[in-house]
């Protein structure tokens, strides 16, 4: 298993690359989820959440 994590001597490049991908793509996913939750909360607070409610 330690051989796996060593990545044939390239661990210092392979794992940071995957970490960067996780941060960029995970980051935009989390931001999207938070933004959706916030807008839904505000829509509810103004009584605009139900479909067909007056715009």
């Amino acid at each position, binding site marked *: 298993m330690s051989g796996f994590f060593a990545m*044939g001597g390239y661990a210092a490049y392979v794992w940071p690359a995957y970490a960067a991908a996780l941060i960029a793509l995970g980051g935009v996913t989390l931001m999207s989820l938070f933004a959706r939750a916030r807008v839904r909360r505000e829509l509810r607070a103004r009584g605009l959440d139900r479909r067909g409610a007056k715009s």
Partner: protein
Amino acid sequence: MAGMHALANPARFQRFSARALPWSAGLTAILLLVGLYMAFFVAPPDYQQKETVRIMFVHVPAAWWSMAGYAFLAGLGAALLVWKHPLAALMARAAAPVGAAFAATCLITGSFWGRPMWGTWWVWDARLTSMLVLFFLFLGHIALSRAFDSPERGDKAAAILALVGVINLPIIKFSVDWWNTLHQPASVMKLGGTTIHSSILIPLLVMAVAFFMLFVTLVLMRTETEIGRRRLEMAALAAE
């Protein structure tokens, strides 16, 4: 009244999105798990690039979908400017940050791949520079869409930028053929068929579909948010 009309299409979108999102999100998660497993445990190390080739399984899908995502953004720009489609502007606002994240992923993973294989984190050659330009086009779209007091003006300015920037897509694609570059030429999408062995090609394609589903999921979810945000703005205007 005009507002009600503009929401006719978005309301239909909300119904579609509410049904599609759980499926696209679930498919994204499953494909990512399968794709990552294949990338690390099925694909063999490359005979020249050794284990660094595993970076390709995120680098190449991120590159493909950031470029396709930009083409989508430009298509939305045309839909807004030519056909005044009410959903296009909201979808473009939703898609631009996702495209930026994909482009950033491509650039950073490429840097971590370039260092051990080329001996440098970065070179200002045609492929890398045009990819950096793509990243800045996404950022420019985000900035322009927010630069005006009226969101409609921002939408139009960003749509024009998206259309002008399309010229960068063929430059990225053919940069490896037109100029000398450290970047290797295409090996999957080329005339005469792919030159990659299936043990590497199949994991790559699974990851590519996973990234596509991630893009779709995020754009659907973020478009919902933009529709809600526009409704809040209209309600605030009506209350004045």
